[in-house]
């Protein structure tokens, strides 16, 4: 499936997604197509369901009891809402960075190797008897872990700031550094999609600018979906923007078009500050 410009592939297709917390209807018939290696921003006033929508994409809402969900979310054509999908495996492909930096109370190094240690390293091995190839998981070696740490921290533009103190607590870092550490940590699972839930709302403008630069850079390798309450941020980084209001997806389109010529009255009101 191609996008408007004709060179992009659809990564996630959401079809008629409805979600309830108890009796509260939080997402209403949301249908949206998210493209590979693009940044898709989701904007809207508080309580419009944008974070909830984001959390559907890696099934984090499963952790909240009394959630009811209907519809389809196709990731590379496979419906991730189906019963036979294990959210634990799904989350290895769809990483997430949260609103408040949430490093573990461990060293910088231990934060990055957390997931590789749990998941192990995948290796293709040939069965000597049958000659069949199969995927085996084994414990990563110290060298492999060192490499992962360096690679992820470099990718998150944090390596130069922390390379001499990898064994120091992650809590010694500034807020912006902690958030970049969380991004590096997410990369350690080698996801295809990274979800950002208002990643800069707890950061100062300088730290925010660094994260934004990083986001634009990540676009080369990952499909990025970012929820933000900061419209300028969406305008700066996103290829496409979706505007949510009261659980409805009001308008979705290329960022420039949406900001300059919103098609819907509601979108224009929100963008010009007359609402929300």
């Amino acid at each position: 499936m191609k996008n408007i410009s004709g060179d992009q592939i659809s990564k996630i297709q959401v079809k008629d997604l409805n979600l309830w917390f108890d009796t509260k209807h939080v997402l209403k018939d949301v249908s949206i197509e998210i493209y590979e290696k693009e940044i898709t921003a989701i904007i809207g006033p508080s309580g419009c369901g944008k974070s909830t929508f984001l959390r559907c994409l890696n099934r984090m809402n499963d952790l909240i009891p009394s959630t009811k969900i209907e519809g389809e979310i196709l990731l590379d054509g496979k419906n991730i809402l189906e019963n036979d999908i294990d959210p634990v495996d799904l989350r290895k492909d769809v990483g997430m960075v949260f609103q408040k930096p949430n490093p573990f109370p461990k060293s910088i190094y231990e934060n990055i190797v957390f997931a590789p240690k749990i998941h192990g390293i995948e290796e293709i091995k040939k069965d000597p008897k049958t000659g069949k190839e199969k995927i085996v998981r084994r414990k990563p070696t110290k060298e492999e872990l060192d490499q992962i740490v360096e690679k992820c921290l470099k990718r998150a533009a944090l390596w130069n700031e922390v390379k001499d103190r990898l064994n120091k607590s992650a809590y010694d870092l500034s807020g912006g550094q902690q958030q970049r550490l969380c991004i590096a940590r997410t990369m350690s699972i080698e996801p295809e999609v990274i979800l950002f839930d208002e990643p800069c709302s707890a950061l100062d403008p300088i730290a925010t600018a660094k994260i934004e630069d990083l986001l634009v850079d990540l676009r080369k390798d990952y499909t990025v979906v970012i929820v933000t309450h900061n419209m300028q941020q969406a305008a700066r980084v996103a290829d496409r923007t979706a505007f949510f209001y009261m659980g409805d997806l009001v308008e979705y389109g290329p960022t420039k078009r949406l900001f300059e010529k919103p098609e819907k009255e509601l979108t224009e009101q929100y963008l010009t500050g007359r609402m929300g």
Partner: protein
Amino acid sequence: MDTKIYKRENRARRYAEGGITGILGACGILSVLILALVFIFLITNSIPFFQSVGLVNFFTGTQWDPFASEAMWGVLPLLTGTILVSFVGAIIAIPIGLGCTIYLSELADSKVKKILKPAIEILAGVPSVIYGLFAALVLSNWIMEIFDPSYRLNALNGAIILAIMMIPIQVSVSEEAMNAVPRNLREASYAMGATRWETIKSVIIPAALPGIIASIALAIGRAVGETMAVLMATGNASQFSFDILTSVRTMTAALAIDVPEAAIGSLQYQGLFAVGLLLFIITFVINLIADMVLSKYQETYK
């Protein structure tokens, strides 16, 4: 004009602040003062005892019998009694308590939790004499049937009843610590494809470890100091032995049993202070070790 009013208010506030700081500070100092006084009281009363009996006799003697015509002052049987009962108790209690904590804080659904948590808190508040009664009259019979020991009341009986008493203390403190682990750490773990068990093992328990260690130290401290339940459960034969199925007398039980017999100012009276001093030092050291473990852990991670 304005500045005058401003100044007066400021001064009044400063006095009030100073007064409150003083009162609260006095409360804080009072607790340290009481601790110091207890310590001094124990030392001054046991010094004459150590002068006449001697430290070596006290710490190496294997018999404790202060009221015999030839009085015996060896604290070893009491010390091994206390260690046997409380440490076997701790070995039983710690894994069960940890399992119970994990279930309660991470796995139990809210309905089960609503019943289980108050039940555990009530258990922590049951008077120890009730536990002692249960140990002496019920638990001892079960142990008789299973192990067939030569003493009906023995150290194992005391250890089990102490374990039962330690679990609720450990669980209620460590459950609080695990609950206090912020939700966003759990989310971070789940978001990276960790399972529930991996999250508990690698994120929640390490983050709650200071609280868990504190809860275990608290429970062991309680066990070492527990008197009534062990007094009723262990048979109180003062003998130097590491056999878990033999009758033992703990330091606390020795104090409780011998105090009514000792004439004030007598050697027996002073000897009891020496045992009390030793007990005080042991609980102090347990707390100190817990503190050191805690600070070492925090140095690594904070």
